[in-house]
């Protein structure tokens, strides 16, 4: 009995050690890259690592944000016709490069019309090759779409939401911000 108990205890210990050595690196890696198995399972792969601009629904955006929980997120709403948005793109790109390893994920969502994927949004983004993922809203109902993070979205572009590692929206930034302005608000959360 004692031997069996000891054996079970030993098996449990081995099991925990295996789990520890498999899970912890996965968690660390997940924390770094924001990978969550649950979210990965429910989101189509082309939305997790988009090679080009992809259409995204409100529900998928919700899942994507959940997927990156554990990282600091800048969720940027923009449009191809919005010049201040376009001027913000290079700064956001630089920011993503500089702070990726410290836990920053930038997600840009175009609010151009959903049927303008091929005609406007993909060509624009292809020419600029930003260092972050870019999506185009699938829904025509902008309220419902941006309502994933903000029920009071005024329709002003660009609007960027700062989301902390717990998934809480910490700041709403209306209008174009500079690299330095973004840096000042993200660094306290990246510590």
């Amino acid at each position, binding site marked *: 009995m004692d031997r069996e108990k000891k054996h079970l205890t030993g098996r449990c210990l081995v099991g925990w050690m295996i789990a520890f050595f498999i899970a912890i690196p996965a968690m660390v890696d997940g924390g770094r890259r924001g990978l969550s198995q649950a979210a990965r399972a429910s989101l189509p792969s082309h939305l997790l690592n988009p090679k080009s601009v992809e259409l995204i629904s409100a529900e998928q955006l919700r899942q994507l944000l959940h997927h990156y929980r554990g990282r600091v997120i800048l969720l940027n709403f923009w449009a191809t016709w919005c*010049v201040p948005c376009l001027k913000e793109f290079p700064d956001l790109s630089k920011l993503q490069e500089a702070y990726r390893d410290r836990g920053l994920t930038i997600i840009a969502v175009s609010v151009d019309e959903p049927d303008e994927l091929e005609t406007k949004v993909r060509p624009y983004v292809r020419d600029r090759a930003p260092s972050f993922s870019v999506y185009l809203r699938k829904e025509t109902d902008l309220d419902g779409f941006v309502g994933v993070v903000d029920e009071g*979205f005024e329709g002003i572009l660009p609007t960027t939401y700062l989301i902390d590692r717990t998934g809480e929206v910490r700041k709403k930034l209306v209008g174009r911000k500079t690299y330095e302005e973004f840096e000042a608000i993200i660094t306290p959360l990246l510590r």
Partner: protein
Amino acid sequence: MNKGMVKFAYAFSLALATGGITLVAAGGHPGAPDQGEKSRVIVLSAPENKASTPTMALGPDGSINLIWVEKLPVQAKIPAGETHTHRIYTNLYFARSTDGGRTFTEPIRVNSVEGSVWGFSTSRPKIVVDDSGVIHVFFSGNRATATADKDATDARYTRSTDGGRTFERERTLNTILKEDQSKIVGGGLSEAHCFGTMAVGPDGSVHAFWIDTRHMNAPGANGSIYGAVSWDRGKTFEPDRLISRDTACPCCQLDAAFSPRGTLFLSMRHVYPEGFRNSVVLRSDDGGKTFSAPVRLTSKKWMINGCPLKPAILATDQEKWVYAAWFTAAETPPGVYFTVSEDGGKTFAEPRAIHPGAKISDHPQLAVGPKGGVYVVWDAKVSGPRRAYLRISYDHGKTFGPIRALGSGETASMFPTVAVASDGTVFVAWQQDNKILFQALEPLIAKK
């Protein structure tokens, strides 16, 4: 029987939407239904297209004249032989009622070339019916540029002199540029003359205004305001001319209104050198030849380096009152605000929130009714989807009555428009489920 005048049977009348209007407390929750103010809701637009942004004007004969845009299905967007397009393929439609909104004529397309309207919610076409019954329509149009092989937007005008049975072939009011500005303008456009408006004076002169990119020298530069005037009720127009250079926020639509004796008011979002962008009103006492310095609608500054896409809507009553309703984030909380000038647009009263308690309110429109009535419609999110609302002042905008919800509220209703007959009957239309809905309410007029 003239097909164009066949009265619609309106089989589409929405039983579910005939909840009429509902009184809503200023805090935002539906209250008791209003008594006796219901009529059926009529669907005006074609079911296969995405319809949006209705605009309404009453004629001197009491006719109700409505325009709206309908975006064509996606497969109609890319021309044969091409792989892509930068155009917005949209049509502009018109319908008219001569029986107080019970029936409407079959909608007709206003633009002569299929899909040639650059129309969407933040570039709302404008309709005005003058005192002789001529129907004037201003909208932004698509144009393929020969020089740049790209698209451009134009300021276009058309009119109907036969009560809306037909519209003349639209005319482009702006000068067509020789240079390709696509690196400056953005949005795939090589030049832009859009976000415009129109007002018709008591003398029948037609004044069109739009935001023009021709002086822009870098991406993000301010727009200029150009205008064109017709002195013969839209038969001919003078060449376009500069109204205000490099001062306009480029994507915030203009609005204009005349006082009964011919003072012209023009609203725009002025970009100040300090960086704030506020809605302002310019006044012209000489038929649009010269304009006053801009007068801000609020003393508070909206500092924003972005695209608000928010016009300020104007209306006048006699010579004294100038009303404005607009979205502003200069006030707290952001939303639709209302102000009134009692000195002909020289100064404006402290703005008041039109929908306190709403999570967001936007897209106001104004109408003036008898006995000092001011009628404001807008859309707002309170709980559930966005919904269109109406609020009335019977004392020239000093105080407002309760907030009244329009339609059923089951799905999002947006971009309402309003007109008021001489007996106080209120006509409203809005966009819901990609359709244009219309409703005539019973007279809402001051009791005294």
